[in-house]
């Protein structure tokens, strides 16, 4: 049977990250992946409404505290050399961060209309 330990790294308290929940999918404009690209601007109104501008859309959402916090886990595997040429693989999950709050965007994105042609 396997025993896999889940704990935060030795450096101490895991940090706290934010979760953003979006409906649907995000695609890169050109099909060259998302890595390193800008996604959008996140604003908050004075009434604490969250506003996300992605491409030609605005999404409205809100921040909320999670009833059940999440742990963000990263899997690590260490290979140990044991006696008689046996190697054991020790797998661990490190808790990189905890997530206690999220911003959730539930409403349909509102398109930003530019260059509306003027009626002649």
């Amino acid at each position, binding site marked *: *049977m*396997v*025993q*896999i*330990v*889940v*704990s*935060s790294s030795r450096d*101490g*308290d*895991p*940090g706290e*990250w*934010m*979760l*953003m*929940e*979006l*409906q*649907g*999918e*995000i695609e890169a404009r050109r099909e060259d992946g*998302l*890595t*390193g*690209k*800008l*996604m*959008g*601007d*996140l*604003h*908050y*109104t*004075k009434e*604490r409404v969250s*506003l*996300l*501008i992605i491409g030609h859309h*605005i999404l409205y959402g809100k*921040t909320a505290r999670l009833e*059940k*916090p*999440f*742990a*963000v*886990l*990263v*899997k690590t595997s260490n290979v140990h050399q044991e006696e008689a040429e046996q190697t054991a693989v020790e797998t661990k*999950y490190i*808790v*990189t*961060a*905890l*997530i*206690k*709050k999220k*911003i959730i965007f539930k409403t349909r994105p509102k398109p*930003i209309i*530019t260059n509306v042609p003027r009626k002649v």
Partner: protein
Amino acid sequence: MSRSREEVEATLQIAKLNVQDLRTTAQCLAFSNTFTSGDYCLMELDETLCKEIESGGSLVIRGDKADHAVLCSPDKTYDLKIADTSNLLLFIPDCKTPDQLPCDQASLSVCLCEIAGFSNHYWELRRCRPKLKKLKKLLLENPYDGPENEQDKSQDIVLYTTEDLLSQIQASSLELMDHLKVIHACQISGFWRLLDFDYEMKLLSHITQLMDSSHGHSAAYH
């Protein structure tokens, strides 16, 4: 990859949003250079498990290839299940909530936040009973029937310490220790043993004989 204040203000203008209605810090989100879904996984916790992790404690996932995996805290056992969500979950390390941002700046300030990763599923924990039937079965492999019989046994017999049991049984430490008490296991030379039935009866009768003989003395004085 960065955005200037002017670029952000221009976007707001195109979107016909009034800067006056907004708080004065904008967070520009960008996918990190190592953005993937593969490296991170999300596990749902409860308050107690969260505190356990924050205080430097650990949780242990236990299971065989044939078992459903369980997660154990020091005193409880949980079933581990994967839950899918139809929504996209993004993890953003430095993103701040409205209350964490200063609200009295004169003009718009822009800060860049990297999105570390994403997922569309997470591990769900559901409290369950520890799987303890195996414990008695393991200890019945070699019941203890007296020190004289220990030498006779072959070298290949397997005996279990507490650590050995924890690596075989899907239960938390506390639940395991409690059940060892329930089944009347004893620790002999560091190994957990169940007493062989006949041996246990022999011991009981020795004890009752001893008690009878000492009572016998006091009875004589009545």
